[in-house]
């Protein structure tokens, strides 16, 4: 069995390349919002954007505003957030300290068209867990997936419906999404574990 991964400490990572700068991130999100409006059939309204905590929840919040402003006569999407801590397949081996955030689904998911929003799509395990959370709350009509960054290296048969940036990565690289909601400047960077640091 492959041991579960925990993210390497920040100090071991060196920035290699900027994938999106501040205007680039804004542009990418606007395009994602437009694609969602155009490609989801009009019959499936209102949309229900549900972010995966923590990064995805901030992005879902921004996408709700963008969808409401880019679409002519587009009803404002519903907004929700899921926390997957209790649904992880590595719940006891991945995280030393349980940081469990609230799952907030103000509207029932039954019969809704849901767009799950994640910041970085990687192994697919997070999305798998998020789908399990939704199933415990009800039976959506359909569930789609929007990711700001798809860094590949999937371990489960999960593919996104809407992608901001696609980037090929190696096992020693990681993608970090910085957001102003967390007190950082909006940008996305590709980082690599420094040689000599513990794997």
């Amino acid at each position: 069995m492959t041991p579960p991964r925990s993210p390497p400490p920040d100090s071991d990572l060196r920035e290699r390349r900027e994938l999106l700068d501040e205007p680039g991130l804004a542009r990418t999100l606007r395009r994602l919002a437009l694609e969602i409006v155009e490609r989801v059939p009009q019959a499936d309204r209102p949309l229900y954007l549900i972010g995966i905590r923590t990064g995805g929840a901030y992005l879902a919040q921004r996408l709700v505003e963008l969808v409401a402003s880019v679409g002519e006569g587009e009803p404002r999407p519903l907004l929700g957030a899921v926390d997957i801590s209790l649904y992880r397949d590595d719940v006891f081996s991945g995280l030393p300290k349980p940081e469990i955030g609230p799952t907030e689904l103000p509207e029932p998911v039954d019969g809704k068209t849901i767009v799950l929003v994640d910041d970085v799509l990687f192994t697919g395990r997070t999305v798998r867990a998020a789908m399990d959370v939704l199933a415990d709350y009800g039976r959506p009509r359909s569930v789609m997936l929007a990711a700001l960054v798809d860094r590949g290296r999937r371990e489960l048969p999960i593919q996104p419906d809407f992608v901001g940036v696609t980037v090929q990565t190696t096992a020693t690289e990681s993608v970090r999404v910085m957001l102003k909601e967390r007190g950082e400047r909006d940008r996305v960077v590709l980082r690599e574990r420094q040689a000599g640091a513990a794997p």
Partner: protein
Amino acid sequence: MTAFPHRHLLGTEGLSVADLLTIMDLGERFLEINDRTIKKVPTLRGKTVVNLFLEPSTRTRTSFEIAAKRLSADAINISGSGSSTVKGETLMDTAKNVDAMSPDVVVLRHAQAGAAAMLAGRIRAGVVNAGDGAHEHPTQALLDCSTIRAHKGRIDGLTVAICGDIRHSRVARSNIWALRALGAEVRVAGPRTLLAPGLAEMGAVVHDRIEPALEGADVVMMLRIQKERMGTSLFPNTREYSRYFGLNARRLGLAKKDAIVMHPGPINRGVELDPAIADGPRAVILDQVARGVAIRMAVLYLLAGGETADG
């Protein structure tokens, strides 16, 4: 560093403020699951919790059982009557037999003080003390602290009056340790025959009348008077007890205007608690029960998960 550096929960004595807050905070996260339509998360799937209740208990056992099941653990109940203890098996033998079936957590209720501590470390499973004689009942104190914090916004600086049969109360002892650690002033009140030595050393202010304990209190915690002790030399009868130590509207008037009234249950209506207060707006008794499930979920989560994290 792990969030909870213990393999067992034997008492609130000796728990750090960080430990107490870890359990309370996690419990408050779990509260939300109990309001869902599907009240279950897969977190403890494949883990086994044995509720070894060798002393009669319905609410605590049910609470632990629901907590385990809402986390998807398998919960098995063994009670005193109908088990091999009536055939003369010792606690240690019973526990070792249970342990041989590889449970992850054993929740023990036992009439003997120190029973849970005796099992801890002698069996492989983590041990939760669900009440050992007159010693400790830590999950009750934790759910009480969680309830107080939810209604008062804090614990530090509050005055809590614990009234009734202090001598036989593991609830009182666990609450004194926890509340003192979290910064509350704790007063205990009861007839002299129902007070115990050592309460002042634990940090409580001791009264042999209820009125001075209630004066200006933020929280009034009434303890159950065990009817089985009635008519013994400790106190004469329920009418007399109620007259001098029962909580009625007049006595509650001595406490702060927004004081809350708590009771670990089951209530003897009209003995330690006037029914009008038990059903009144100041009582938070059913909230205690609801939080009990969430706190026990937190404890099972931390103990059942801890082993894997360390190993």
